[in-house]
């Protein structure tokens, strides 16, 4: 069997969009976990909110891309409120944080069910498709790949090149010391939580045109998001990118060769085996090597 150039291009694109999808759904979670050590079990619901806010925007006549940006910002605002009401009381209490955000996730799903009903809504996939040889590729999948690169780059710049980013990293490493040198740790944590939530919202917004927008959609993605974050380790950008690349690649290859069910299973198995040998994830391993 010879691989035609168009077939190869198609495979590469499907692999890249699989990787991009993982990066998009995980990045917000990775920020909260890597920067604050918070495991947000409501992450799936933050994705879901992003999708529903986008849906609402589009239904009110907004341009899709504008609606997506606004949805991300709105979820960021939700995150700030959640941090103030809930998370700030629980820093350093890992199981308590998980249980509380779990409770939050149940509430959010049900609230959305009460407002929108349990049925599936959808936004038509924008843009058309392009032809590569015998294959047709949706242009939106190219948008997803671009968005993943953009969001990763944005996160990197915010965390390393801004005053806020430096303070946020300081507040995480040594909260007392950061406070002693004048960092407002409370405010910084609130902003970081808001930033991570906004990224989750952006992820949900980007998913809206390619998936059924239902209140329970968070669950579909959150398992893979958690696996990506665990395999990526504590480094937010490097970890997410490398883990998404690896797991997305495996998932896409196995799915293409067999079925998507086996692709999911392969993702799980690879993730668990990697953790056996790199217990702090890929970025944790790099840090130790350095």
């Amino acid at each position, binding site marked *: 069997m010879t691989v035609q150039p168009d077939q190869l291009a198609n495979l590469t694109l499907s692999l890249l969009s699989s990787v991009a999808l993982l990066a998009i759904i995980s990045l917000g979670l990775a920020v909260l976990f890597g920067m604050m*050590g918070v495991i947000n079990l409501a992450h799936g619901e933050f994705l879901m909110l992003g999708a529903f806010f986008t849906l609402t925007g589009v239904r009110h006549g907004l341009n899709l891309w504008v609606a997506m940006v606004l949805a991300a910002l709105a979820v960021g605002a939700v995150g700030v409120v959640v941090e103030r009401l809930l998370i700030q009381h*629980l820093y350093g209490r*890992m*199981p308590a944080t998980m*249980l509380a955000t779990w409770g939050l996730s*149940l*509430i959010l799903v049900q609230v959305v069910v009460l407002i929108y009903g349990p049925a599936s809504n959808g936004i038509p996939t924008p843009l058309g498709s392009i032809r590569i040889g015998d294959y047709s590729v949706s242009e939106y999948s190219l948008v997803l790949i671009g968005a993943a690169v953009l969001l990763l780059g944005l996160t990197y710049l915010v965390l390393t090149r801004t005053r806020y980013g430096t303070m946020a990293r300081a507040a995480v490493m040594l909260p007392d010391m950061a406070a002693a040198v004048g960092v407002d740790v409370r405010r910084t944590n609130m902003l970081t939580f808001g930033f991570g939530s906004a990224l989750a919202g952006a992820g949900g917004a980007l998913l809206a045109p390619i998936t059924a927008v239902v209140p329970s959609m968070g*669950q579909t993605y959150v*398992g893979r998001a958690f696996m990506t974050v665990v395999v990526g380790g504590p480094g937010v950008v490097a970890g997410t990118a490398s883990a998404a690349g690896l797991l997305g690649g495996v998932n896409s290859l196995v799915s293409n060769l067999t079925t998507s069910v086996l692709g999911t299973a392969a993702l799980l198995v690879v993730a668990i085996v990697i*953790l056996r040998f790199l217990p702090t994830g890929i970025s944790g391993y790099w840090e130790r090597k350095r």
Partner: protein
Amino acid sequence: MMSTNNRSLSGSVAPMWRRLRKHLPVEIPGAVTVTLAGAVLATTVAPFRALDWSLWVIYGLLALSFTFVWGRAGIFSFGQTAFFGIGAYAYGVLGIDLFPQTGETTTALAAAVVIAAVVAATLGYFIFYGNVGDVYVSIITLAFTLVLLTFMSSTADPSYHIGQALLGGYNGIVGVPPLMLPGGGQMVSPNGLLFTCIAVAAFVGFGIHLLLRRPFGRILAGLRENELRTELLGYDVRRYKLVAFTVGGAIAGLAGGLFAAWGTSINPSVFSLPQAALVPIWVLVGGRRSLLGAFVGVAIVQGVSDALGGGGGSATPIVLGTLLIAVVLLLPEGVLPTLSTFARRFLPALGRTSVDAGPAGRTDSPVGDSVIGGESRKATSITAVDVHKRFGGVAALAGASLEVAPNGVHCLIGPNGAGKSTFFNMLSGRYRPTSGTVLLGDEQITLRRPDERARRGIGIKLQVPSLYGELTAFENVWLAAYGAKRDIAEADVRAQGALAWLHLSEKAQQPAGELSHGERQWLEIGMVMASDPKVVLLDEPTAGMTREETMRVVELIHDLARTATVIVVEHDMEFVRQLGAPVTMFHEGRIFTSGSIEQLRADERVLDIYLGRGTSHVGS
């Protein structure tokens, strides 16, 4: 718990009864009593009630598995739901495939337990033997559950079948046979099912109680309280966690199998987050340490939830979510424990089950060659040969060699950054050297884990006090003694001897966290002593102590040195002088010089290093 105490009987009956009682744990009459009560209950209630209550008991078993894994062993696992679901699916598939041949489904139920246990053991192996951090354990088990949800939901195609059983995607497996006992092929009635569930739950519950009463329970408590300390006492932490995780998985699988038999169908929603969230809610309401609380928590939560309009009530998730948040924010110990602290004054039996309080009034500790009684192992030498350790670009140790002869005290000093702490960690096994060898006596231990070194006779006291704050002083030293001796009676004797040696016998039943700072430091030295070490490593044993407390430590160390080789890392020169031991000084990752403290004090170069004078530069 319902532990019947028949101690009063044993006096009147012959010694044969006493011997029988010794081998017959109190849990067995307890389990039989509950089973009989269950039989009475099951024959009197209406069938629809019996079905409801069966479900509660099944959920109670699931909650119990979480209480065991989280409340007792300290592993925050989301996996209980996963193992519950795996057990349910296993029962469903095997029930459908085997029932036509065998006419019963108990084999399928047993297989469900085994399959869930095997999956738990496999997952647990990767988690615990990979030394994954606590946080990761939670996330991996959660992700595992959710990936199973995705996986099972996407098996709608008829090509996904095992034997005759279609996996069925979202709709799951239908037509699962109910519980059928061997023999008649007679379907178990709702009341019979309730009886079966109660009997199974009683024996599992009392079995767990029995397991926890053994040293295993105390070791699990130690693991939960302070993992590093437990490892340094010679327990293979990974193995204990794996065993606890596997047992928890087996119980959850059993509950899952019963669940599938109860509902005669099974679908992927058992793996869903709302379903999984119920498990910690039950346990938090019932109290996360209490075995009985698991069942009480289910009864309360499900009772309230039914009163609100059952699973179909649209407000139920909101109520449950709010409940979860409220408990976490307001009653972190759980609902029932908070209530029971009020009630305990009136009903002492409600208190949580504890491990046997230790031997009562046994004071006849045999006088051996050790100050705390019991036999001692011989002290050995410990040797490091040309040990290097690099952290990235920094060489913390650049070829340190030292041989410490058996018995006696030996001090390691040096300015900050000289490498003495790294050297200490190299001996304790916390770090592996980049190159070089470490010998205990004649045995190579360079690559041994800390728990393996502890079992070979290295006793360690870290700089930071590292105790089991919630366990009693007695339990602290007992764990140390048992880690070395693996014999309950001997551990009892040694633990009492060690407390007497420390003059802490009156405080034996006090939680270690409530002792004073000095007492906690002594207790840790007592733990080292109780573990009958050949070599003792003490890192700054007098940090933060008053003058008198320090003097006491000097005495304790001299006692230790009678049966062991003692190496002390210390900053306090006055303390080193009082120990009167040979001193080795570290500088820039190497042994700089050795001798008595007087010799070192007279050495101009030593002063130069400490004061940062001359050519040598001293780190921070």
